[in-house]
């Protein structure tokens, strides 16, 4: 019962914060609400016995990505931004489509039953090995190649971001 109450609180706050993120006129506020949202999602992960994921959710999302967003938002002319409409002309179409898909998906999920044998990473196992170690063991053995590829993706992202954002020095 207590667990359900906690979940109810988090679910309600997450949905509310998500709505605030996509509806605020001032982008700085959106970013701030998003920061709060990420903390709540991280807490939800703790609920699901995923401490390491919760940690990187805070460090990478809240710490790195959102700061990047803030920097870019500072480029905008906020005063100008507050005067114009926040939605495009055809926003009802977007609302309708997303609401309809949501309705259908929720309807499907209601009757969803998980039928699968439990895996070997039970809560007891993770508690004994500690979560980070258990995750790391898989990541560096079974998923070593994807892990290396992920590092390449990041490298490419770094180079790409620099090339794209660099001011052209040669003028003609």
């Amino acid at each position: 019962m207590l667990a359900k109450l906690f979940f109810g609180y988090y679910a309600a706050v997450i949905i509310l914060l998500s709505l605030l993120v996509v509806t605020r006129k001032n982008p700085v506020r959106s970013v701030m609400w998003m920061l709060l949202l990420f903390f709540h999602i991280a807490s939800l992960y703790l609920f699901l016995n995923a401490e390491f994921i919760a940690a990187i959710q805070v460090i990478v999302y809240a710490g790195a990505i959102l700061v990047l967003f803030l920097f870019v938002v500072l480029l905008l002319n906020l005063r100008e931004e507050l005067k114009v409409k926040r939605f495009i002309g055809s926003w009802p179409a977007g609302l309708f489509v997303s609401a309809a898909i949501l309705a259908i998906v929720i309807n499907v999920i209601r009757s969803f039953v998980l039928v699968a044998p439990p895996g070997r990473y039970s809560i007891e196992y993770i508690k004994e090995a500690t979560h980070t170690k258990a995750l790391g063991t898989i990541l560096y053995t079974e998923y070593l190649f994807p892990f290396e590829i992920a590092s390449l993706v990041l490298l490419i992202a770094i180079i790409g971001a620099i090339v794209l954002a660099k001011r052209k020095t040669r003028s003609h």
Partner: protein
Amino acid sequence: MVPLNWYLMLSATVFMIGVFGFLTRKNIIIMFMSVELMLNGVNISLVAFSHYLQDLRGQILVFFIITVAAAEAAIGLAIIIALFRNKSTAHVDEMNEMKG
């Protein structure tokens, strides 16, 4: 014990809010944040599945999604900067070079 279905519904809701934001907002930075929202929605469902299936591989996937999201944010924001420099606007409805 909270049923898995609740987590999935939450995940779907966050995802569709992200979709709604992407489809309707004028400001390209907010659209981009909506994409991050969609990714977070997916992450919630993956972690929930991982917990209920007692299988850590779902969380590995989340790990990679966060990696890709970081890369995407770096590149995407760089593109926005380049765009902003050329068009001096962050509003997508003012960009329609592809009009047929």
